[in-house]
């Protein structure tokens, strides 16, 4: 606790006061960072009022990637919107799919078979790994550690191979359906998947040797972009950013979904809430996600041949072969594709995404057209907090703040 205070005082003391004898002191220069700047991780624009090298005011400007996803959902209907959830946080499409599917299932009170839940956990954790690899690699690259970027990208590419082997796509998979998943995982792929984590865990240790104790990395991140526990909560932080500030909260533990209560894993928590702590939390989450994946793979072995899609013909498409031979199934197919209705009411589903709490608030009036589909995007909040993290600090530390806040503009702007 005292250490945290010291760091805040150190930062305030180093940057705070204006020099009255300096003629240029106090003259603010408006500086636009972005919207197309490699360090802003997408089309984010920051309006910075700089006093020399010190940022006095920072104002994020968002909306350059706004595509009207919520309006699109109201126009397309519940089923067809699955494709669009991929494009929210495009670093973890399958996790977005799962969150949206679970919101629909919550509104429809639809049970998901056990095997489908295990497959979903495996996909969600692999997605988290892929997204964290980008967050760590890119934030390291922004601060000059470019080899880290190659290492994490290499690992991410191997994870994409697994996802590709299952879904047939590297990105924008849309493989989750309401009531389960689109297809079962082949036993050979399960084994390939299990083999992936051997090398992966060894690699994390290697990265830690390279980066965690690195003097430059430490100096550039320790005490930078720090927020206290109270600040993090007030500004709506969730996920690694909240845990970095010392709040031990994880939706997977507190409100388990998709069978997370049966998995053995730990929640990584930081102490000081600065960029370095958030990096440490993400590194540890890579290990924990790998641990969950291994357990999920063991469970997949035990449930081979089980159902992977619910059999509720109000919401779930019948198997393709049956549609061609049975009139009844053809009618079901037609009804679901053209006119799938959810019961009247509203539901909220929040899942632990790699950036924070990804929430879907959906409201239905009982017709085929959604009344409202609102996405609680953690990236939007991670951007909103940037002025708090950066004001009063050096311009060059803005890069560390942006990298450690971890956001994706596709999700922020929607």
């Amino acid at each position, binding site marked *: 606790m005292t250490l945290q205070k010291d760091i805040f005082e150190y930062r305030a003391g180093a940057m705070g006061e204006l020099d009255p004898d300096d003629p240029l002191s106090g003259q603010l220069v408006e500086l636009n960072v972005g919207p197309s700047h490699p360090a802003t991780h997408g089309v984010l624009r920051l309006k910075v009022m700089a006093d020399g090298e010190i940022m006095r005011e920072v104002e994020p400007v*968002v*909306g350059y990637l*706004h595509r*009207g996803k*919520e*309006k*699109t959902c*109201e*126009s397309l209907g519940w089923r067809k919107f699955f494709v669009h959830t991929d494009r929210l946080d495009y670093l973890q499409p399958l996790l977005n799919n799962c969150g949206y599917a679970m919101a629909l299932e*919550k*509104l429809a*009170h639809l049970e998901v078979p056990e095997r489908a839940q295990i497959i979903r956990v495996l996909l969600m954790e692999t997605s988290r790994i892929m997204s964290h690899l980008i967050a760590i690699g890119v934030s390291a690259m922004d601060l000059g550690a470019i080899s880290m970027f190659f290492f994490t990208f290499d690992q991410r590419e191997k994870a994409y191979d697994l996802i590709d082997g299952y879904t047939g796509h590297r990105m924008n998979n849309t493989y989750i359906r309401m009531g389960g998943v689109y297809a079962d995982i082949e036993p050979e792929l399960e084994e390939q998947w299990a083999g992936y984590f051997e090398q992966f865990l060894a690699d994390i240790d290697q990265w830690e040797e390279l980066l965690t104790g690195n003097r430059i990395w430490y100096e550039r991140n320790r005490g930078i972009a720090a927020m206290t526990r109270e600040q993090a*909560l*007030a*500004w*709506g*932080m*969730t996920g690694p950013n909240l845990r970095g500030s010392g*709040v031990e*909260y994880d939706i997977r533990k*507190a*409100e*388990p979904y998709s069978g997370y*209560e049966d998995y053995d894993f730990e929640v990584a928590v930081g102490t000081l809430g600065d960029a370095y702590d958030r990096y440490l939390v993400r590194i540890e989450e890579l290990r924990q996600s790998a641990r969950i994946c291994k357990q999920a793979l063991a469970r997949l072995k035990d449930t081979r041949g089980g159902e992977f899609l619910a059999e509720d013909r109000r919401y779930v498409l019948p198997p393709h072969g049956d549609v061609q031979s049975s009139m009844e199934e053809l009618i079901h197919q037609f009804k679901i594709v053209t006119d799938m209705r959810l*019961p*009247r*009411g*509203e*539901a*909220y*589903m*929040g899942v632990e995404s790699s950036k924070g*709490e990804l*929430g879907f*608030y959906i*409201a239905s*009036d*009982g*017709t085929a057209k959604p*009344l*409202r589909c*609102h996405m*609680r995007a953690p990236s*939007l*909040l991670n951007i*909103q*907090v940037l002025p708090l993290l950066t004001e009063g600090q050096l311009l060059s530390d803005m890069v560390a703040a942006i990298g450690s806040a971890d956001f994706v503009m596709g999700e922020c*702007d*929607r």
Partner: protein
Amino acid sequence: MSRSLEATRERLAPILAGLDHKEEESRDGMLTLRAPQDGVRAVLAGLHAKAGYELCTIVTAVDHDEAPTPRPQDTGGARFEVVWQLHSITSNDRVRVKCWLAGEEPGEAGFSAPTVMDLWPGAAYFERECFDMFGIGFDGHEGLKRLMMPDAYEYYPLRKEFPHGGIEPDRLYKAWDKQRRQPSGGTA
């Protein structure tokens, strides 16, 4: 596991006593409170101060225009409702607060909800987004402006009458382009 609906209701009963609200059924098992427009701020402030809701998860609105269900009579046929969702990490429960808005047109008196920015600073962007998409004002939100759409935009895209394809989506660009091409005009 998160707290059950009954346990949340029991926990909040002493805090909500004396505040104008009623409970509504919800399909997802989250405690849902309905408050009148002039009393919703007191409910939210009470929940913030005494019930330990550290996080404001959502501030959004729902447009009930053309919905098959009749608009509620006791609010004079309100069209829009504002939804807040609060989350307590210490007691691990969530609550949803809803309120009908009297007006329908942006800028009209009564077509606004109280701000919760002073209670949860993180709600500022949610309120800006709500204003941007529906035109709903937030009393007490200083410098309320659009979030996603350009400042010069004239429409409110998430209102039901707004077409999915947009209204002249390239109008602002054309105006800018025209100004740019004028020999005496633009600097860009």
